[in-house]
């Protein structure tokens, strides 16, 4: 790659051709303010805050879209630039509601932070926009508040180029512009898969998770209810972030302690049903292989992915494992197996989930998810919402002692923990399938080929003469690429595909801390594998509590009872629901 040399604030820097001036400056520690910029995702020069002075240029130029060139001379912080940036911010604020004190993003808003750091103390411009779009609360997962939107287009870029869902985009123009589904329809009438990646990148309070904390507080305060909580694999390496711990810090025991202090009657673990998922899904795979079933089998634990395939590839639904996600398996067991064991009427049990995911809220509401005879999962909270509840209750998670999960739905293995990272379900499944098929103990259980942030990963595992070919995709762009290949008949000799909706898997889920980026994803993945290797059991089929569940309640994998409580069906949907029938 050719290099170019340029001067930024009197420092010489050499960068690869094609590097933007903004990134060149960052390489030598010079920070230029940005608002709309998202490295490699949203590079459109929309907000103009990253303007720089270029020697010989007639006007200031946006450094995010300006390629570095040989001999360029750049200044990033002249008095003129400071004045211009302040005016740009004033203009943005002139069309922004000043509701900061009651905004969802109060204190954690990029616009607020940037306005403060630019020294804006007065806005000289009158608000001229007359258009005021209503809040869209139609979706069970995501709230849109268009009046707060600053048109940075980050959400659009993520929805289009990272997830290839295209649920929302800019419509109309000028002050009437709105970022919305086509025809400005509510989100629940669109192809939105509820992944919430938009909510991770919105710099302001224009897109955020549906807040269900009030419902959780009400359940906790109701003495007639027995409130149980489950914690998703990925939450144990992200819950510390809201309390100042570095991304990826395992806080499993401290999270259990915090939940107990919030008042949950039992603190259980979604990891328990993640192990169960492996048993059911692994046996389903073996059944398909032996009986000429539809292959490759595709994982079904990611609800954003499920809605995506239902909208865009309904003809491939037979490939999906019929196994419910761990969240939903937990719900149906909590209100049957656990209710029986504890002698509690299931109608008095409230199941709360702590999830890395906004789509889990939608999944819990799917009409078919009441196999226990009740709504299997009652309240889904994202890790962000749990963080807010703990802060409101003045519980400092970071400084709590470690505590253990409750029995009987609290015991799990390392195989379940790694569900939180891309490749984890595949690795967990192969640890079990290998031993079930060969009857031998797997020596090295770390299947590193399926780990990491590469978009599509591939591995072949030799089950003593039977080569099992697997693929792993995360982020719907990569899932789409695999589905196109599957449709074209190119994946006929593969057996198993893992798909996770969000980049990085659940550790990068749409309900995780705002500002999630690749570096944070990697740190959280590292944390997840740390959790795995520290576990007593690391293969799902070794989980004694799961064995007990089969002995006492389910019978065997894929039994009638398992099918009734732990498996589900999918619904083909239109890829243009916005136009109606």
């Amino acid at each position, binding site marked *: 790659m050719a290099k170019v040399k340029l001067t930024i604030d009197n420092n010489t820097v050499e960068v690869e051709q094609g590097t933007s001036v903004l990134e060149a400056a960052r390489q030598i520690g010079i920070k230029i303010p940005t608002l709309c910029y998202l490295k490699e995702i949203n590079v459109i020069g929309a907000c103009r805050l990253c303007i720089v002075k270029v020697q010989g240029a007639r006007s200031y130029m946006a450094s995010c879209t300006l390629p570095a060139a040989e001999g360029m001379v750049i200044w990033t912080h002249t008095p003129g630039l400071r004045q211009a940036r302040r005016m740009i911010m004033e203009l943005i604020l002139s069309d922004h509601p000043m509701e900061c004190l009651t905004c969802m993003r109060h204190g954690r808003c990029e616009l607020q932070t940037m306005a403060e750091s630019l020294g804006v103390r007065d806005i000289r411009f009158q608000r001229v926009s007359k258009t005021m779009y209503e809040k869209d609360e139609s979706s069970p997962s995501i709230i849109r508040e268009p009046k707060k939107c600053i048109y940075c287009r980050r959400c659009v870029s993520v929805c*289009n180029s990272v997830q290839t869902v*295209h*649920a*929302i*985009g*800019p*419509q*109309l*123009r000028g002050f009437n512009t709105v970022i919305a*589904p*086509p*025809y400005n329809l509510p989100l629940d009438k669109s192809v939105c898969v509820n992944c919430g990646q938009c909510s991770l990148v919105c710099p302001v309070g224009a897109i955020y998770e549906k807040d269900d904390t009030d419902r959780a507080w009400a359940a906790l305060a109701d003495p007639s209810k027995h409130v149980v909580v489950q914690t998703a694999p990925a939450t144990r390496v992200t819950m510390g972030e809201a309390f100042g711990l570095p991304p990826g810090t395992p806080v499993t025991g401290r999270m259990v302690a915090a939940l107990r202090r919030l008042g949950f009657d039992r603190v259980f673990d979604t990891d328990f049903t993640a192990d169960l998922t492996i048993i059911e899904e692994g046996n389903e795979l073996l059944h398909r292989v032996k009986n000429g079933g539809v292959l490759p089998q595709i994982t079904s634990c990611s609800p954003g992915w499920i809605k995506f395939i239902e909208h865009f590839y309904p003809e491939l639904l037979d490939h999906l494992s019929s196994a419910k996600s761990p969240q939903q398996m937990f719900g149906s067991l909590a209100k049957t197996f656990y209710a029986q064991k504890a002698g509690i009427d299931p109608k008095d049990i409230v199941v709360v989930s702590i999830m890395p995911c906004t789509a889990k809220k939608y999944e819990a509401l799917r009409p078919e998810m009441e196999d226990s005879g009740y709504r299997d999962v009652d309240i889904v909270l994202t890790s962000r919402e749990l963080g807010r509840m703990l802060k409101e209750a003045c519980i400092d998670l970071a400084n709590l002692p470690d505590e253990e999960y409750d029995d009987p739905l609290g015991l799990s293995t390392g195989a379940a923990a790694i569900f939180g990272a891309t490749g984890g379900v595949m690795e967990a499944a192969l640890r079990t399938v290998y031993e079930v098929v060969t009857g031998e103990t797997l020596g090295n259980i770390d299947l590193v080929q399926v780990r990491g942030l590469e978009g599509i990963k591939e591995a072949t595992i030799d089950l003593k003469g039977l080569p099992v070919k697997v693929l792993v995709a995360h982020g719907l762009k990569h899932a789409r690429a695999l589905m196109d290949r599957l449709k074209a008949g190119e994946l006929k000799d593969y057996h198993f595909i893992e798909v996770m909706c969000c980049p990085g898997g659940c550790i990068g889920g749409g309900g995780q801390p705002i500002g999630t980026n690749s570096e944070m994803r990697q740190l959280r993945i590292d944390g997840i594998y740390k959790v795995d290797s520290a576990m007593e059991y690391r293969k799902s089929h070794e989980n004694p509590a799961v064995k007990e569940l089969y002995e006492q309640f389910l019978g065997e994998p894929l039994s009638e009872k398992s099918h009734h409580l732990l498996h589900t069906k999918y619904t083909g949907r239109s890829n*243009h629901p*916005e*136009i*109606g029938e």
Partner: protein
Amino acid sequence: MSCCQDHQHYDREVLAGFIEGYRGQPSGLIQVLSKIQQTTGFLPKDLMATTAERLDLSLTEVYGTASFYAFFTFRPRGRHGITLCNGTACYVKGAGQVLDSLEKELNIRAGDTTGDRKYSLDVVRCIGCCALAPVITIDEDVYAGVDPEKVPEILEKYE
């Protein structure tokens, strides 16, 4: 797909063939949208979806582009297009009252079409004959110095 049950008569196959000609070409979007509007009078939802499918675009992109341009409309048009000028001269000479009268008589708002698809009503800025203010045009006919009370009489001429 059941096509266009809702709009005026036109040759569906010719239009479908035109859209097909842009298969896999997102850059042909404006040409396709223009053709649809010329042919059907507006941009029906089902043809927006067909356009998205053929050109490898999302409906969000197709709608976003179409809604950016004032030229495109998403509502069916009437057989007769009424245009009321609200430029400076017409405004001063009472275009507002003429508009009130038209809206009352047709029972629609500016920008809409009557339920029987007979009339569409639009407001524009200056059609370039200020001496005749206030002015309306219906199809190719120009009505000068319109008296709001004469509006029903004018409309009677159109079938």
